[in-house]
């Protein structure tokens, strides 16, 4: 590859959007051409600098938006309100539904509940400014933090080489038991990885399975080493699967 071609692809190369063979050709060229290598360094530096120019919404605007959005969202719900005797009907209906749910209470139902709890946990952490209880990219800090808080020791592999930065961990309560939540970051997006000991009726290990997206968040889960793992994030399902594979691969390597 010559300099002109290299410069043509440079921008997409820096974005990690080139196919592997082309990427390798460019890297080979950088190894032999100082001018192009310098341009690459400059491009990387510019990316960093542009990022610092980003702005965040003023607190006053956030409050204004919340206030403006509330009445609208409520108005949309009021449509569902019926006449005065509606609560009575609703209560009766609720009883019927409860009886029905109780009769058809099955694993699907349990799973739906679990999915919802996993999603709530992730969303709460994002909006409540409570992403982590222990913030550290060092597994030697995160792993011991869980000691005495949960009755298992979660593995906290370093996945930064695969593009997933360790952010920290937090404690949560999912499906009736304590759960550890490990938080990783992929580009600008956070991944919550919730884990707890797998139930007796679950396989000790199962492959990576994707669940139906919940409120716009992708979810994948797997069981390994007697632990149930649930990963949730706004990144695409494929990206989340790569995360799961990276995690599984590293944990296997550690053990």
């Amino acid at each position, binding site marked *: 590859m010559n300099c002109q071609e290299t*410069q043509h692809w440079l*921008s997409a190369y820096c974005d990690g959007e080139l196919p592997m063979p082309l990427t390798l050709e460019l890297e080979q060229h950088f190894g032999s051409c100082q001018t192009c290598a310098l*341009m690459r360094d400059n491009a990387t530096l*510019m990316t960093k600098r542009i990022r610092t*120019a980003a*702005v965040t919404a003023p607190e006053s605007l956030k409050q204004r938006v919340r206030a403006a*959005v509330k009445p609208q969202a409520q108005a949309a719900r009021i449509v569902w309100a019926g006449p005065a005797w509606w609560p009575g009907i609703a209560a009766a209906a609720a009883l019927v539904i409860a009886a029905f749910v109780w009769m058809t209470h099955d694993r699907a139902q349990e799973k739906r509940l679990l999915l919802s709890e996993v999603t709530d946990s992730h969303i709460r952490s994002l909006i409540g400014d409570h992403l982590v209880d222990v913030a550290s990219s060092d597994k030697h800090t995160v792993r011991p933090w869980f000691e005495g808080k949960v009755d298992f020791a979660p593995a906290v592999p370093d996945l930064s080489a695969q593009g997933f930065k360790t952010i920290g961990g937090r404690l949560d309560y999912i499906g009736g038991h304590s759960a550890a939540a490990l938080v990783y970051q992929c580009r600008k997006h956070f991944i919550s990885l919730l884990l707890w000991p797998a139930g007796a009726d679950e396989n000790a290990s199962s492959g990576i399975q994707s669940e139906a997206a919940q409120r716009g968040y992708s979810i994948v889960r797997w069981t390994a080493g007697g632990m149930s793992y649930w990963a949730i994030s706004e990144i695409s399902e494929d990206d989340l699967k790569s995360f799961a594979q990276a995690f599984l691969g590293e944990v296997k390597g550690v053990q």
Partner: protein
Amino acid sequence: MELRIDPFEQTVLPHLDAAYNLARWLAGNEHDAQDIVQESCLRAVKFFEGFRGGNPRAWLLTIVRNTSYTWLKKRSAVHALASIDDEEFEMEDVSVNPQQLEMAMASVERMRAAIDQLSLEFREVIVLREMEEYSYKEIADIAAVPIGTVMSRLARGRQQLRHLLSAETQPNGGQP
């Protein structure tokens, strides 16, 4: 213990910073950006029932983008929307002095001024890529253009930005 949260609030409102950032760069100033974000959120509430999963941030940013464009048109900034020729542009900019460029980039104010001077098409993809870290595919969806266009606009946008930044350090413009 149950924490009740409105589905709209929990899906959309965590992404207000991203919405504001995009609006700020498309509109060119913070004042208009505030109005655009507020209007976009009201639209989002209205359309929320039509939101069928997917990435909530990308969904909100698409609305912000469309609202911003409507806004720009209303303010008759139509010249800014004039389509640029996607073919006519040379990829050669070795003439830019790396040290001068580095100095210019070190100042956030200079960087912001230079981004503001970019053509709208370039500014849009640069903000989505560099600040919001979207993939080409995601940018293509938000900006409603093919992936190849995203790629060439980013390359040319960065080139234009380099020129703008180094031109600022050289009063004579630094043009050949």
